[in-house]
């Protein structure tokens, strides 16, 4: 396997001189689902946002498919095949579902846009039924679906998601993770930041645990799932159930 996304010693933060990510690294292989976990304030969101070009990087390298992309602005990264779904306000609420998707399709050649739109409607049937509705009027789960569809519209190599399950009911959380497994099956590499560690580990191949902006631990999802020390520290403790094989 070749690593599709590699982050090395990334230092980043919103204000100059106040780094939030302080030298974190991550390697993602093609076709993997990788989850980034960690306690509140560990810098997980900042880490993924700086990879997406939304938070200024101070130092470190980010490569996508072997080419250095750390100096590229956010909108160029999409052209390179790195898509990002923010945690909140991740759809254009005042625009229709279809306009949200067509907007993202702007970087595709004109001849491919309609086909991609159909593919998304096929993958997310709920969206097809509500294409004329303003995205702000969708339910929480459908919004998340639209946010993912918007990111997938351009056929990215890697999709990164910041807490896709935040604010959703348990049933919808389950649906989001089923959708993400389907995304991976469609050949897209998935990187996600999650608070909902158990649900994320259930579909992930590997996980990185960040603490205070640095790598604290990494390993195969099953390994972390079964490590009582890690579970107590980072996964919200509690009773440790076995990882359901079926979900993986």
């Amino acid at each position, binding site marked *: 396997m070749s690593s599709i996304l590699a982050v090395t010693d990334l230092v980043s933060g919103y204000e100059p001189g106040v780094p939030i990510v302080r030298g974190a690294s991550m390697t993602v292989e093609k076709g993997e689902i990788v989850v980034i976990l960690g306690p509140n304030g560990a810098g997980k969101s900042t880490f993924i946002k700086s990879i997406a*070009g*939304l938070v200024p990087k101070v130092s470190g390298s980010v490569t996508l498919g072997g080419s250095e992309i750390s100096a590229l602005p*956010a909108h160029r*990264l*999409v052209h390179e095949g790195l898509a*990002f779904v923010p945690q909140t306000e991740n759809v254009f609420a005042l625009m229709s579902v279809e306009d949200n998707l067509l*907007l993202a399709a702007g970087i595709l050649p004109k001849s491919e846009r309609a086909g991609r739109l159909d593919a998304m409607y096929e993958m997310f049937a709920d969206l097809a039924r509500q294409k004329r509705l303003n995205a702000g009027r969708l339910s929480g789960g459908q919004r998340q679906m639209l946010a993912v569809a918007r990111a997938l519209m351009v056929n990215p190599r890697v999709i990164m998601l910041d807490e896709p399950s935040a604010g959703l009911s348990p049933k919808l959380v389950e649906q989001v993770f089923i959708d993400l497994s389907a995304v991976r099956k469609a050949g897209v590499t998935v990187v996600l930041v999650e608070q909902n560690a158990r649900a994320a580990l259930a579909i992930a191949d590997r996980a990185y645990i960040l603490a205070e902006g640095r790598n604290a631990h990494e390993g195969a999802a099953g390994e972390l799932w079964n490590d009582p020390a890690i579970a107590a520290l980072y996964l919200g403790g509690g009773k440790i159930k076995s990882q359901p094989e079926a979900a993986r």
Partner: protein
Amino acid sequence: MNLQFLVDGLLTGSIVGLGAIGVTLTYSILRFSNFAHGEFLAWGAYAALVAAGVLGWLAGGDVAAIAPFSFGWTLILASVIAMVFTGLLALTLDWLLFRHLRRRANAITAVMASFGAAMALRSLLEFIFTSSPAYFSRKLQIAQKLGLGIRATPDQMVLIAATAVLVTAIHLVVTRTQVGRSMRAVSENPDLARVAGIDVGRIVAITWMIGGGLACFAGIMVGLLVQIRPYMGLDLLLPLFAAAILGGIGSIPGALIGGLIVGLAEALAVQTVGAEWRSAVAFVLLIAMLLVRPSGLMGGKS
């Protein structure tokens, strides 16, 4: 009741509406009130005056007017040149000033800077062209009877038609094209627009070009209907903002409707209560709107 106020109101309303579109776009996409926007009207009018003069000189002197209008082909071509020039002027101002403030300072700093820029731009016009008024043409136009006691000159009628065409075109661009979709996206959520692959810098540039171009056309209208003076933009600044707020910040049809309301109300006030109350009308409408419906007639966001 004399219906003549409809023509005067439509004309003032078109001028104010075209200027207000720029104000509303700048506000919704760049998130600050640009008080230098009025100066784009004045600079646009003078740019057209100079361009028409140069074109006339190149054509070998006096160019005949196209009957029944007061202007010839030189002004039509000069208008296009001046609109591009004014768009570029707006872009240059952003590049030299606002771009840096957006990065480092808060919105109020940009607003204050726009006051300063307005003064500098105005003084520069006064320095170059003096404060005495200039005219595109001194040809007198006879108003034609349109019925119902309404009279309008051919210039007035063609300008109203041109405004309708311009506004429809801009409205179609914003609602139907990828550029328009991108503008709406940047206005709603710039960060999300970036991760959706939109070059925000390019959209900002397009916004300045559209705002500057329309302001220029409004300035040319003032020049054709009244006169060209360095202070013409300052005089229109309050009505521009009143119209943008009245229509709902961010809404292009709203800005035009807001402009028409301000224009018609002003014209009606002149006819009914007296010309000295004209400037107060925009104020009253603005305050009433802010009290009753702060998001404006067509505003989605408050």
